[in-house]
């Protein structure tokens, strides 16, 4: 079975770690054996960690000349059979976008840890932001799908990095850890497990590599050197990889399958946590570091007698609009606090039906305080 339980290769038990170090350890635990990167604040600690650990663990590390070279080397390494990753932040993510589209179109498993900072542009390099929600999904041209997970703790910087690898390898898509500076540089206690479930890519010799009979299927993935004579191309291709730069049916079938293979599996991919939702009249929808403040505010509001709950999104992409629609049926309002000008807010609105949605935005390079969220809830009494 591609999903196997292995002994955690990093030190298990109670540890005190930074978020960025936990993401690096999660990558190693998931079986990552190639890191290609370029330094950028506030993600560089991940690269530094991997530069120390990859070679002793039988992998390889390359410091590349820029971020598009980094992600290109990661795609190349993935086709050589290695689980492969990079880490970056806003400007680096922008520079990677063309190749992220290549990874999606060639169905190459790659993991990108995006430790978000205050953008756009160079912005405030050391300050926190969450403005890359749309960029990881829509940054490259054309239609495609990705997976993006949003950690709220150092523990999840570890566990969701493992999950990003597992989903990327299983679905053959780019997977993002949508971290934030505040979580990347947070230090707190984690409990790392003794064993870990990892997904190793499916390979059946002689099978088509870029297509299958099912309209939402995920093909077998060999690697270079296996004797398959692979034809990997970013041009439109048939199921064997032959370029099909003309013929509408080839493009249509491929683009639709690449979306459907992710969207048809939403039920398996999407995860969330609910707090006090059973009788909640007002529901805070939050993710990442902001969900920590939101939980504190919700608990305070409960003490103040307000029927409020928290829906914490762990999976951002694919976006679980059906979940929002279900929760909307019992709620009289949503509050969406975000460290951007309302990126998930728009997604919630599109699924909330008649339930009103209030947006709380903050883009000053600081985390949103529980008091701000509590004040916004007070206006919704």
């Amino acid at each position, binding site marked *: 079975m591609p999903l196997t339980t292995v002994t955690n290769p990093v030190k298990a038990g109670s540890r005190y770690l930074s978020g960025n170090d936990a993401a690096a350890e999660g990558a190693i635990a998931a079986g990552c*054996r*190639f890191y*290609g990167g370029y330094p950028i604040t506030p993600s560089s600690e991940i690269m530094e960690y991997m530069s120390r650990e990859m070679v002793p663990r039988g*992998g*390889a*590390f*390359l410091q*590349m*000349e*820029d971020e*598009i*070279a*980094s992600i*290109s*080397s*990661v*795609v*190349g*390494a*993935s*086709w*050589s*059979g*290695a689980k*492969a990753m990079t880490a970056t932040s806003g400007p680096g993510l922008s520079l990677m976008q*063309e*190749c992220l589209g*290549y990874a999606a179109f060639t169905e190459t498993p790659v993991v990108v840890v995006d430790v978000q900072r205050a953008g756009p542009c160079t912005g405030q390099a050391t300050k926190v932001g969450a403005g890359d929600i749309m960029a990881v999904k829509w940054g490259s041209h054309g239609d495609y799908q990705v997976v993006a997970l949003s950690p709220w703790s150092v523990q999840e910087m570890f566990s969701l990095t493992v999950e990003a690898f597992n989903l990327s390898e299983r679905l053959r898509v780019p997977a993002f850890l949508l971290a934030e500076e505040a979580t990347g540089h947070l230090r707190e206690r984690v409990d790392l497990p003794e064993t870990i479930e990892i997904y190793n890519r499916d390979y059946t010799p002689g099978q088509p590599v870029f297509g299958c009979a099912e309209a939402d299927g995920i093909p077998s993935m060999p*690697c*270079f*050197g296996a*004797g*398959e*004579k*692979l*034809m*990997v*191309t*970013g*041009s439109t291709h048939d199921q064997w*990889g*032959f*370029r099909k730069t003309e013929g509408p049916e080839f493009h249509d079938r491929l683009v639709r399958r690449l979306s459907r293979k992710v969207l048809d599996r939403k039920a398996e991919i999407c995860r969330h946590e609910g707090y006090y939702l059973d009788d909640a009249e007002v529901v805070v929808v939050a993710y990442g570091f902001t969900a920590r403040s939101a939980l504190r505010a919700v608990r305070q509001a409960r003490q103040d007698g307000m029927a409020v709950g928290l829906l914490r999104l762990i999976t951002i992409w694919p976006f679980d609009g059906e979940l929002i629609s279900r929760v909307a049926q019992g709620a009289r309002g949503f509050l969406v606090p975000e460290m951007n000008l309302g990126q998930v807010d728009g997604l919630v609105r599109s699924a909330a039906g008649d339930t009103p949605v209030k947006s709380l935005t903050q883009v000053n390079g600081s985390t949103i305080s529980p008091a701000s969220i509590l004040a916004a809830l007070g206006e919704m009494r």
Partner: protein
Amino acid sequence: MARSMEKYLRPEVKTTPFCPGCGHGVLMGALLRAMDQLQLDMEKTVFVSGIGCAAWIPSPNFAADTLHTLHGRAVAFASGVKAANPDLKVIVISGDGDLTSIGGNHLIHAARRNQELTVICANNMIYGMTGGQMAPTTPQGHLTATSVQGNPYRAFDLVKLVKGAGAPYVARGSVVRPYDLIGYLKKAIASPDFAFVEVLSPCPTQYGRRNKLDSPGAMYDRLGQLCRTEAGNDPACFPPEDALLLGEFND
């Protein structure tokens, strides 16, 4: 293609995609002969290319693993392929615009890192696939779709560029001297270092017809006259003779 080389080609591929008179078919033949003479294990060889006419030399023609990448990024992809599996022989084949303009930074940094990669640059001195625009290798004064009054800029000397970046093996060949070219390609592929071969390859369709070389024969004749194997001193040589000096350029 000679029958003896057919074993290196995919049986599904019946023709090359190149224009009549394009030099890339000669380069393709030279490369296959070099690989044949080296007894290269095709199952352990990966061909990486970018975007442009030359990127179609290996993809999908060669019966081996091929990675047809983004415009300019072939060398960066190749670095990852090689690092993750050092047992693979990794050969990059792409054009001058791809490798030295949009991909110029990747080329010089790969040369600096001296990872074991073979990079073959088919230099036709123009952007062929997009319709004949000026490249960083277009000789000064020459006519292209984006320099109709003559290219105002100097051309890169690719040998000096890559040598300056630290590549241990650098050679310049031409499709008008295919046997010398096979020798350079063999040395580059066998090298345990970063090895770079520039290959002068005529583009009659886009370059020739704009520069009074309106038949493939005229282009090959002209290139044959200009290519030299010893440094000369002809101030009238145009483009500058340095850029047409063939050979190996190693310390």
